[in-house]
């Protein structure tokens, strides 16, 4: 493979990436929350579960996001929840992308009976409302950790990525450079990872971003109905407690606004970035 045109292409992508406002805005929002999640717990002395202050106190200099019905520091809970959110997104979304890649590559490249079998499997997991599946598994697990939740989400969220990657692999498989690699007796796995995968890198990155956002939303939904981690804290659990303990009738909006706003902002920024990336990689979509 010639190296030169590749490099030129990369520079071109970088050029359009730097000019793409959607990508820049999205990335900036994600970066902001990442930094907040990293340094946030250092900015407060309060433990998320400690009864640190007066009950249902509005935001003040001491408690930036106010306190809960029990006098817990909302900001302390919020930053710990942010960490959990990014963790679920990375593990759950990452696992889903990896499984989707494996299934998609193998099905698309091998074809035949293997493709048929993997296709049936994909379609089945695709049609099962995975949330219901997670629900019943989580309901029977007595101790649930954040890691366990992420893995369960990853194990159920992969099908559409597998489908998209399979379609791409199928169209790349019959290209000349892949034929050439095959003729030079390259092993199938090497062909997949050195010839096919790099040519659909943009696709894989975008699939990961979407899975990342999806995993965050699923986790928040599970947490909200009380099937989240039994140890630790998350943004979904914050909202669950806020609703359960009457934050609505009490009007303590500082309890339920930050967690949901953060999720919406993070996932929205991810989707926004994705469209930006699509425009970077696909010249046809750029605004004229």
């Amino acid at each position: 493979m010639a190296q030169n045109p590749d490099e030129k292409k990369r520079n071109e992508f970088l050029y359009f990436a730097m000019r793409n406002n959607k990508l820049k805005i999205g990335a900036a929002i994600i970066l902001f929350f990442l930094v907040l999640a990293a340094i946030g717990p250092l900015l407060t002395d309060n433990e998320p579960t400690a009864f640190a202050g007066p009950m249902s106190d509005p935001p003040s200099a001491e408690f930036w996001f106010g306190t809960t019905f029990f006098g817990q520091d909302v900001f302390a809970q919020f930053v710990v929840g942010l960490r959990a959110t990014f963790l679920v997104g990375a593990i759950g979304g990452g696992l889903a992308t990896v499984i989707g890649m494996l299934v998609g590559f193998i099905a698309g490249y091998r074809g035949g009976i293997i493709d048929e079998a993997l296709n049936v499997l994909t379609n089945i997991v695709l049609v099962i409302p995975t949330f219901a599946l997670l629900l019943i598994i989580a309901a029977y697990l007595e101790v649930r950790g954040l890691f366990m939740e992420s893995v369960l989400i990853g194990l159920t969220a992969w099908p559409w990525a597998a489908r998209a990657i399979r379609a791409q692999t199928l169209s790349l498989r019959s290209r000349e450079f892949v034929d050439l690699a095959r003729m030079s007796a390259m092993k199938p796995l090497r062909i997949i990872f050195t010839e096919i995968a790099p040519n659909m890198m943009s696709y894989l990155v975008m699939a990961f971003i979407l899975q990342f956002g999806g995993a965050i939303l699923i986790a928040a939904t599970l947490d909200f109905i009380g099937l989240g981690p039994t140890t630790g804290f998350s943004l979904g659990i914050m909202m669950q407690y806020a609703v359960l303990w009457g934050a609505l009738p009490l009007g303590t909006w500082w309890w339920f606004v930050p967690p949901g706003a953060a999720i919406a902002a993070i996932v929205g920024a991810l989707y926004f970035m994705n469209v930006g990336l699509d425009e970077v990689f696909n010249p046809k979509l750029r605004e004229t």
Partner: protein
Amino acid sequence: MRRYFSRKLLIYLITFFLAVTIDWLIPRLMPGDPIQNMLSRAALNANAAETMHTYYTHAFQLDLPVWQQYLSFWNALFHGDLGISTYLFPTPVAKVIKDAVPYDIFLLLPSILLSWWAGNKFGAFAARTKRLDNTVLPIAYLLTATPYMWLGILLAWVFGIILGWFPIAGAYSFTMGTQLTWVFVGSVLKHWFLPFASLFLVGFGGWAIGMRNMIIYELEADYSHYLEALGAPRRLIRRYAFRNAILPQLSGLALQLGVIVAGALVTEVVFSYPGIGYLILSAIQNQDYFLVQGCFLFIIIGVLLANFLIDIAYVIVDPRTRKGMVGE
């Protein structure tokens, strides 16, 4: 067309079979004695606990060989027997679910169909319209990224608590029984509106963005450029693009059903709306496992049925599936 349907039906049948198997398997795979756990946490009095223990041992049939347990689970299922709810003892699970379902249909059907229709129309309209693309679409992104329950909480807070326009709990006023009067119908609609609105808005954002991206792809396709070169009016090209873009949106609807149902569940929890979602919350909080299992099966069956309906709609709008030109 026959091939198309037989493939789909096969998938649905396998899925249903697997779902029932999972429903049967999960309580048996989990560590510990499920019956003992259930009873110790249900905090029943001694007499009730005794009755429940006998009932559960019989219901799970743990003394029989495994394959017999499995077969009788299927048998019970075909007789509509999903066990008895512990939380609403002694109502059968099937009846508890049956009472909740009308609320779900009443909430889900309008919000899914309307948000799909409106989102597609709006997305097609906004695509390649610079001003809308830069003002309204960012809002659509935010809407589709919003967790369903949070939008529900916000709407309940603003329109229910601050403005006081809508009630925020129940399906109708607590002071009324079910009756057929205008006042009652008004009360039902008033209680319905906020949960409907939050489901509608999240869905609307997603469909609008999907359609906008699809239309842009279609407008860049060869046939559009060809039409343009022929001097066809913009409206005509857009109409062709829309008709092509609606197909992936239709299969997208089938793929999104699970997510929408999950969203409806938590929205019901926020508004204490007495559908399946609210039921699941109560079932989880009261450790009512039969009810959780029943709800799980019901959701699966509902989603499979809806998928099948969408398949039929797909055949109607896409002539290629009728002619057997598309395998899947």
